[in-house]
């Protein structure tokens, strides 16, 4: 495979593979000298990075050799569980560990296999697609979550981006965008998705002269690099965005008429009685008003649709009143335009603390920079084609989406793009985790071209989704332990499973089984979710048996695991597909597509075994490996872009086994042809092929529209409320169902409505570039780097505020919320923060004995995060992650 090279008589070789320090999974090359992994570089062949790699990736070798890694299976001998309890670990053999596990799983299988709950880390998103999904399908359990990796960062963002861009996230088309607006995210600044490639692209954009405006309560890296920093009040980005939309529409009269008319549901006629679409009696399709023929038409009538930019169509109404079947209807756009009028610059200033004049000015700047009407010509497979040039992009992520108004905030920010037509076209806001792909020319795979449903809207049925944001699922009586089935607008939730009344909820919904076994793959949910005691006592301790694949003994294993299995890290394993379908690691822009694989650069050390190998072993022992392979075959079709050729399918009749290099080989050959198997791809660890321009700038090549008016949310809200009534479960879910409506609004967080003036400071956490989730805190090189930075381990506080409170630089303090939960840290004084805020970085403040590098560094912010219904977004069930606290000396 990799030819060993020698230098001075000693082995010295660079092996291409794929990073695994975070979910970006950039291409890397790893140096092995005389059997020791010593160095990491970017892989120049991989479009995600092109030879560059971030601080975390460079520090990878320490993860491989850390003396605190778990190297042997361990068994808890102390039956007591909980935070601070000594598990009294005992080293056992793999055979003993697996015997115990199989016995427990078999019993559960007999009683009700749904008693198994899979918990996994988002850091290893590509492994999840195999070991986790395959096992769940084979064993027969629907219960799964990714703890903090999901609820902190994605319920609103991924949901809304699915609806609006068929993607996981959005990102400016840095190569051509002249005005990126950054709402609380580090995209392009070292963290976030496809981080390395985006950082290069954002730097290119700065060098080119693009102008960035950043909305962030503190001087984050992205604020420091911006041309304009707006220190916004935490959790109010949605109001800011609605203010921009109002100012564009009603103050400056700027919108992209063509885009609204032919690429959104803006012209759909809405009946006043119930806010629903006016539909054609025969086809049941939504209607628009044809201004040329002076009559209603169904939205997909060729006379009123434009797929490509140069297509011609009749003008349609987006303003005014039109009578259809005796009912006076209004185009959706007009309703939106009226609806946002309340977000005047003055009102927005009251909410966001951004000056009214700035709201108005920035909106004007957006309107001008969007160059509405301008076009460029791109080379497509069908020759040169004209498309709109709209070089502005409002983008966002965790900072703005992690609030009780998560869904609407995400939508409001993205709406800025759609008003000026700057979506998935040249220079605008692009879907990240790009999902439009005509496939490799030799095979036509992986293939993913989005399409429109009968209502004309973009169907989010892409390889990125398990949760299908659109068309909306119909809420069903729940069968899952987190009641997920009844919440079609959410991906995960925590307020059910961490509630002290969790089992009462299960009773009420007549769910006949209870949590039995948790399988954990790499997550430290004691620390990554919220208040640790709540998570541990209300949720994790409800399981009878927990076994965990882990690299370290984290706070999770200490508190609740019965068996710890020593996993390999990313440098010791095969993963057949990494960039696909993982959504975080597709190259953005015009650079090639890349299908990355992970291959071991060293044999597993000690008794570490690869999670995926062990899951296969477990399936074999349970007698379900045939179903496991079938599960993988089914997953590959759905998530990896197209049907499998029979000759590459994994054996489904139990007559033969497969190992991971072989699975890798089959998958590669199936996607890219017989000659492009593992032997071929392992030389570079990535298979690349050119992107079609019409896949990059797909908006004006696809007939689908996106909603500006969310008519179907009204139905969802009514359906969920009805289900709650049917099961007499109102007391658990007395959410404000009126938030399920058609037009965006801003709603305050609990931190904004805290009544007690004693809790006078807003606090939030931010993403430090050297950390991802919680694991990187134990890496000694990354720890050393964190100490080089003035703020990574500190609580940032404005110097004047500190002076008023008598707090000095470096002093130890407590932050305490009104629920009596408090965290400790030390203060770094700065001018670079809005004076009423305190900023904390990363999942820090570890206390576990087996991660001594991480222990005691930084502040454990999540202990301030409440996990109840009041801190949950009714629309998406996202958790609120900003708090109001009092600060006092420790």
């Amino acid at each position: 495979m990799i030819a060993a090279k020698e230098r001075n008589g000693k082995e010295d070789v660079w092996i291409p593979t794929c990073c695994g320090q975070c979910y970006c999974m950039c291409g890397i090359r790893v140096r092995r000298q005389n059997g020791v992994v010593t160095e990491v570089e970017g892989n120049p062949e991989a479009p995600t990075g092109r030879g560059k790699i971030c601080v975390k990736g460079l520090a990878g070798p320490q993860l491989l050799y850390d003396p605190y890694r778990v190297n042997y299976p361990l068994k808890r001998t102390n039956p007591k569980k909980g935070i601070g309890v000594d598990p009294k670990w005992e080293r056992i053999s793999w055979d003993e560990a697996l015997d115990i596990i199989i016995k427990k799983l078999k019993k559960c299988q007999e009683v009700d296999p749904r008693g198994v709950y899979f918990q996994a880390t988002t850091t290893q998103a590509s492994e999840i697609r195999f070991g986790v999904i395959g096992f769940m399908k084979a064993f027969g359990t629907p219960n799964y979550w990714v703890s903090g990796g999901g609820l902190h960062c994605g319920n609103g963002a991924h949901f809304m981006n699915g609806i609006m861009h068929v993607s996981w996230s959005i990102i400016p088309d840095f190569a051509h965008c002249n005005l990126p607006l950054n709402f609380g995210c580090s995209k392009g600044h070292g963290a976030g998705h496809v981080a390395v490639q985006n950082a290069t692209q954002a730097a290119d954009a700065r060098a080119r002269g693009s102008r960035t405006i950043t909305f962030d309560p503190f001087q984050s890296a992205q604020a420091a690099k911006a041309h304009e920093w707006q220190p916004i009040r935490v959790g109010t980005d949605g109001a800011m965005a609605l203010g921009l939309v109002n100012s564009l529409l009603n103050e400056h009269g700027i919108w992209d008429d063509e885009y609204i008319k032919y690429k959104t549901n803006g012209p759909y006629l809405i009946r006043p009685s119930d806010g629903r679409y006016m539909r054609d009696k025969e086809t049941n399709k939504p209607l628009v008003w044809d201004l040329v023929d002076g009559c209603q038409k169904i939205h997909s009538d060729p006379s009123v649709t434009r797929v490509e930019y140069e297509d011609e169509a009749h003008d349609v109404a987006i303003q005014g009143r039109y009578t259809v079947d005796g009912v006076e209807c209004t185009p959706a756009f007009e309703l939106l335009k009226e609806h946002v009028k309340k977000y005047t610059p003055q009102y927005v200033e009251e909410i966001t603390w951004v000056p009214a004049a700035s709201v108005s000015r920035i909106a004007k700047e957006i309107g001008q920079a969007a160059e509405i009407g301008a076009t460029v010509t791109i080379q497509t497979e069908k020759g040169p084609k004209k498309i709109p040039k709209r070089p502005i992009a409002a983008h966002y992520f965790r900072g703005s989406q992690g609030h009780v108004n998560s869904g609407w905030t995400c939508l409001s920010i993205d709406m800025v793009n759609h008003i000026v037509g700057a979506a998935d076209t040249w220079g605008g806001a692009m879907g990240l985790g790009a999902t439009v792909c005509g496939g490799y020319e030799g095979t036509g795979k992986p293939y993913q071209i989005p399409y429109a449903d009968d209502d004309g809207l973009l169907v989010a049925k892409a390889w990125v989704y398990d949760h299908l944001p659109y068309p909306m699922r119909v809420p069903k009586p729940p069968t899952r332990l987190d009641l997920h089935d009844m919440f079609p607008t959410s991906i995960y939730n925590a307020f059910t499973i961490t509630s002290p009344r969790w089992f009462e909820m299960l009773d009420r919904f007549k769910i006949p089984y209870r949590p039995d076994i948790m399988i954990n793959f790499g997550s430290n949910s004691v620390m990554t979710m919220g208040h640790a005691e709540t998570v541990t006592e209300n949720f994790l301790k409800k399981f009878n048996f927990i076994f965990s694949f882990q690299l370290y003994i984290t706070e999770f294993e200490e508190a609740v695991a019965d068996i710890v299995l020593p996993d390999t890290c990313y440098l010791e394993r095969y993963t057949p597909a990494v960039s696909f379908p993982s959504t975080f690691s597709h190259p953005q822009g015009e650079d090639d597509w890349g299908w990355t694989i992970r291959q071991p650069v060293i044999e597993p050390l000690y008794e570490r075994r690869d999670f995926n190998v062990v899951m296969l072993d477990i399936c074999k022992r349970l007698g379900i490996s045939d179903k496991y392979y079938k599960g993988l075959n089914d997953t590959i079709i759905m998530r990896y872009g197209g049907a499998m050729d029979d000759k590459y399918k994994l054996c489904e009749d139990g007559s033969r086994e497969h190992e991971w290099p072989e699975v890798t080989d089959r998958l590669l050959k199936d996607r890219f042809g017989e000659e492009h198997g593992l032997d071929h791809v392992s030389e570079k660890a990535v298979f690349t092929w050119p992107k079609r321009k019409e896949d990059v700038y797909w908006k004006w090549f696809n007939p689908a529209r996106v909603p500006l008016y969310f008519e179907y949310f009204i139905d969802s809200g009514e359906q969920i409320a009805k289900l709650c009534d049917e099961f007499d479960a109102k007391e658990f879910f007395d959410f404000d169902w009126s938030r399920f409506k058609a037009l965006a609004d801003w709603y305050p967080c609990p931190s904004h409505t805290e009544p007690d003036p004693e809790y006078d400071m807003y606090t939030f956490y931010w993403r430090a570039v050297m950390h991802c989730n919680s694991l990187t805190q134990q890496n000694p090189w990354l720890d050393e780097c964190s100490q080089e930075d003035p703020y990574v381990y500190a609580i940032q506080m404005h110097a004047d505020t500190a002076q008023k409170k008598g707090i000095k630089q470096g002093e130890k303090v407590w932050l305490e919320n009104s629920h009596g939960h408090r965290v400790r840290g030390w203060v770094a004084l700065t001018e670079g923060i809005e004076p009423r805020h305190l900023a904390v970085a990363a999942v820090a403040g570890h206390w576990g004995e087996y991660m001594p590098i991480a222990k005691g560094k930084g502040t454990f912010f999540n202990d301030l995060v409440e996990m109840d219904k009041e801190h949950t977004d009714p629309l998406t069930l996202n958790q609120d992650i900003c708090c109001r606290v009092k600060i006092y000396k420790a």
Partner: protein
Amino acid sequence: MARYGMVIDLKRCYGCYACSMACKVANHTPPNVFWSRVLKGESGTFPNVVRQALPVLCFHCEDPGCVKVCPTKATYANDDGVVVIDKEVCVGCKYCMMGCPYGARYTVPEWKSYFPEGLPLSELEQFQKEAWEEKSGCGVATKCDFCTERREDGKEPSCVTACPADARIFGDLDNPDSEASQRIKRDRGFVLKPEQGTKPKVYYLPPR
């Protein structure tokens, strides 16, 4: 003969520390030593305030203060302008650390592990220790040498290769057509503490 120098574009840099880490890994520096560092500062008062990252390393000065004060001539400039240290000749007097106006030199009395005492060294740490002692060593002055070994392999210094923002240009300042020379000229390149008169060969391009 080339005269090597570097240009760091502060408009591109966003202070991510990849340069520090790449240097650490390539040059096997022990705890508390980053030959390539990122300093972070802040200027102004809220809300007219800006944070700035400033990557620093040995500036390989044309008239280096360190060379002047070195009593044993252990520190000298190569023909290509790269300032290096002969660890066999260095006596560890630290005069050079006083002589360098940029604080770019480091010395460690003894090699230490990152991990608590009493543990056997990992294979990686054993490798790091041996490699450090071979190239640099304890009790003597150490610093950036523009990655001598990498350059021998035809590569650029590790901080240049890794930089996700593509903020660093390594090149021959004697060649007026090199990208480094061109960018210094075109984009108002400047050096730190020019009043010290050491003529650094690491230039910065302005952040805005």
